[in-house]
């Protein structure tokens, strides 16, 4: 038996949490086209509807400089802004750049963290919609074969 009881329970909890999501969130429009775009510029324009995006230092991306495992790279995004509506996390060099997009309610803290899969070294881009305007930040994360440490 490889899977421990706890892990199974935890998997169950995650599923349960998803089922408990408030209805209006589930009802939000699924950005089908954005998730299927293969070029990051297309993904961004499909998320923003072509609106201007400005780089903004108030967005912080927490990610390793070099990933310990490209299959599960921990990434966190926080935005020190008011009225944050959505946070999307994109990976420039992934075949499908959009990893996830979060719709936030007014009362929630504008901070999300997740684990993403990265094929190779790439910029990780955070796209934040706040008070109707779009902002972005990026951080390069290296994915390496590993080995040969001194």
């Amino acid at each position: 038996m490889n899977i421990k009881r706890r892990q199974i329970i935890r998997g169950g909890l995650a599923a349960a949490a998803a089922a408990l999501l408030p209805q209006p969130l589930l009802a939000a429009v699924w950005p089908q086209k954005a998730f299927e775009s293969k070029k990051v510029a297309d993904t961004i324009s499909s998320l923003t509807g072509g609106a201007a995006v400005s780089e903004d230092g108030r967005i912080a991306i927490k990610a390793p400089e070099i990933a310990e495992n490209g299959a599960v790279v921990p990434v966190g995004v926080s935005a020190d802004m008011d009225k944050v509506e959505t946070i999307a996390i994109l990976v420039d060099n992934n075949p499908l750049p959009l990893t996830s997009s979060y719709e936030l309610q007014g009362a929630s803290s504008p901070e999300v963290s997740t684990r993403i899969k990265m094929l190779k070294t790439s910029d990780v881009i955070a796209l934040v919609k706040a008070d109707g305007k779009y902002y972005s930040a990026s951080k390069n994360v290296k994915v390496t074969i590993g080995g040969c440490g001194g």
Partner: protein
Amino acid sequence: MHLSRRQFLTVLGNGVIAGVVGRAPALAADAADFPRYGNLRLLHFTDCHAQLLPSWFREPGVNLGVGAAANRAPHLVGGNLLRRFNITDARLAHALTHLDFESAARKYGKVGGFAHLAALVKRLRADAGGASLLLDGGDTWQGSGTAYWTRGRDMIGAANLLGVDVMTGHWEFTYQDSEVLDNIGRFNGDFIAHNVSLTEEGLFDDQPAHDAATGHVFRPYTIKRAGDARVAVIGQAFPYTPIANPQRFIPYWTFGIREAALQQLVRRVREREKPDAVVLLSHNGMDVDLKLAARVGGLDAILGGHTHDGVPGAIEVSNAGGKTLVTNAGCNGKFLGVMDLDIRRRRVAGYRYRLLPVFSNLVKPDAEMSGYIAEVRKPYRKRLDEPLARSETLLYRRDNFEGTFDRLICDALRERLDAQIALSPGFRWGTTILPGETIRMENVLDQTCMTYPETYTAEMTGEQLKLVFEDVCDNLFNPDPYRQQGGDMVRAGGMHYTCDPLAGAGKRISGMRLDDGAPIDPGKRYKVAGWATVRSRSAGEPVWDVVAAYLRDRKTVAPMQHRPKILNMAGNQGAGA
């Protein structure tokens, strides 16, 4: 007293006195040039790689720096290094460089050895009147046959006898996690690392941790009293351990540089503990430490290791909090860093730093440590002492691209495993053998001993091979130190290539050819042999058995260095005489 006063002064005379305001670093055998300074002495050694006995160790002839790291310490070799630090003493020049290595080694003798180190440490601590700390930067439990066979325990015993107060780690984490914790339990000092935490799985599985609330696997820092001073020592383990070494031994531990967390910790430690000095005991590697020092305020010093740079001075780095001193104390027990601090009104008012070479001819070994070492080695003596072959050339490893011992390993792998191409990792540990010396099993183990020594053969396409070379090359020459891992280039047997360190990632390697001159075809498959795989365990026998069998068979070897062709590095002070 194990050291006569005159011997001691000679030893000290070989240390560089740096950091004295308004005075060039000086050398002298006269006591006046090594006066007591300040009121706190920090002794620091790092990356000894389990070398209990004195050995030869040749410093690199090629250690290129790119970007901001070009032409500055630690990327200065030979005469460039000596000129930068105004070093004229021939013995010290020998300790710090590869110049004329063979004849200088025969003249000045072996370096390092724990019994010699112990004698020096005892004397320097006595001189400081109890106001001293002994810090070990890690890579202590790996690098010799006895460390491997005792799972690092021989080094725990030696460190306890030496009186190490605080240590952090890297190769320590190449034993199984439970063994690491068990060893730490046997260690009399404090094992610290702020940048190792449990993964979410580890937290969920109730894996052992120093602090389950913060996730810290080890104590992040420790407060030590030395004389009248209270010193905070923060631990920075090698941030890329699960990438550079197998994750499978430490599946629940996650690492990283964690610059922001370090800044927070420094601030908190200063506020809560109100120490007189805050020091980072680091296994980042010197380039990472220099960048970190420029970005994190509030550290008085970063005492560093990992990149094995014997840098004979402290580098002053300015940052928002003031200045931070950055040092790197070489490897293999060859050097002892001595940082004397003058603490006034609860802050560091001045410093002197010396990098003391440990020349075994100049120091009378500590009897207690000698006895311990003899006892530890006793059960293994026969195996260690087996003569394998004679070398006609100088065997060493340190160099960005290739060492002659690596050439020997690659030759052995290709012949014994019947492969076209052999790959060997660009490690920086391993001792040196002089021409005419007999290679014993112990020497082979010193170059290869680790917990994932299994060899492999695999079919790789030319494209895959290029990918490996590019990947390792980026770990060495990425202009951002935070994206480097601190090893050297993978060593290649049976093939040649051209390297442009200044080119971007994925574009540095070209002209890959087999030994016979045939270009390596991206679509064609080649039989490749190697060892030390980081992912899953390989099936082959340990590399030391492969090399030993090759040597027994040959009886005499004479490997020569074959560097790749290097582009765009003319005038770089990390190469040349």
